[in-house]
């Protein structure tokens, strides 16, 4: 399964990518929202994991754009603690799941499994 990870914090990006690779997924990474949007249309990932706060285009913009054109691609949103309103907005835009920081990579792995099993 091909997963796009959009996260601007390098260590978090590497950690998530390593965890998903360990689970046998193919992982594409980017550290900004604009590139993420390009990669979504060029690479057609099966699942997207995106942080909310990112340079050039936010996670919300990514969710909105993806759900407008490719409704079937599941999106998991990563948010900081206390961003309930943003998470609700992401769900309104069509996000499939969210995980708030601090989070356990194992938990993220489980959520990915659950979404891909659908």
């Amino acid at each position, binding site marked *: 399964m091909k997963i796009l990870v959009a996260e601007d*914090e*390098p*260590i978090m990006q590497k*950690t998530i990518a*390593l965890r998903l690779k360990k689970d046998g997924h193919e992982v594409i990474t980017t550290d900004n929202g604009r590139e993420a949007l390009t990669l979504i249309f060029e690479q057609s990932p099966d699942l997207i994991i995106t942080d909310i706060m990112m340079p050039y285009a936010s996670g919300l913009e990514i969710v909105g754009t993806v759900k407008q054109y490719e409704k079937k691609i599941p999106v998991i949103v990563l948010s900081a603690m206390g961003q309930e309103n943003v998470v609700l907005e992401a769900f309104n835009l069509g996000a499939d799941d969210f995980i708030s920081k*601090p989070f*356990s*990579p194992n938990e993220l792995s489980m959520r990915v499994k659950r979404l891909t099993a659908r």
Partner: protein
Amino acid sequence: MNLFVNSIVPTAWLLLAARVLTLAVAAILLFVFLFLLQNKRKKKRKAQLRVLFSDLIAEITIAENRPELQETLQAFASPKGRKQLLANGYARKILINELVKTKENISGQSAGNLCWLYEELGLRQDCFRAFRTGKWYRKVRAMQQLAAMQQNDYLVKIYRETNNKNSFIRTAAQLAVVKLTGFKGLRFLSIVSHPVSQWQQLSLLSHLQEGEVEAGMIRLWLSKKNESVVEFALRLVEIYKCHDLHNEVVNSLRHDSAAIRLQALQALREIYTDNTAEALLQAYPLLNRPEQLAIVAMLPEVGGSENALRFLTTLVQGEDEGLCFHAMHAIQQISPAWSSQVIHQLKTNPSFIPILTHLQKEAV
């Protein structure tokens, strides 16, 4: 002109001055160039180290057991020069920063893995050395790092700083002990003599978890001389709804500090009993106007007895139009029947007519 200048300053001197000036400018330019070069090298080195350590941290984070952790660390340290790198003070500082930053975003077993790496490389000793220095900013940073990495061994030493005269050290220490031990960490409130700022109070609250609050400790803090401690204790009562402390909160309505009295009213809104309305009515004459208005607004919430209705009626008949309006509003909320009676009695009173019109407009 030249002759005139030459007659005052000899040409040789002018030449010498020009040479000195040129040399000075050249020296300054050289210094700036070297400074920028060094800065660039430093930045490059820092970026390289961050990339190197981010690989290590990411792998450590996802390791599933102790042998895997050790294997990952050994694999990282095995290339030539890595052991010296891990012993280098500057590199260790970068590694600590990266570890702490990552720990803020990671929880569960992975967070434990990060703490393991921190301890395994002896990085906590580095933080503790910084903690013992006289420089306040190093001390503050060290406390933040030790708390982030859950280093409970240093709790006693950090606790000693919770009443430090330097506000930066004091607030960092207070936050650190709460991060390390939760509600128990708040015991510094029993000894702190400096004010706990509003911002600090909110920061402390953000690190507390429900279920660990001890009413006995809050009772003790409610009797402290430090007004900010009493205010914070009342805030705890309000947030964690400590019903056992109702009487102590009522007593706080007679405190000299207006901020404490207002906070006590807010706390009572959350923990009211059948006796609260009566206690508010007794305290009413002793309070200032904003507090009196707050009481009038609270009465419908905390249960308006007939006594409260009678009291509110006297306010409606009073001269203060603001109070009169709020009292009438409260009566309407408590008992529409009583409200009709009051309106019937006062509708001919010219000063009551604007209030009545306002209430009717509001109802529409």
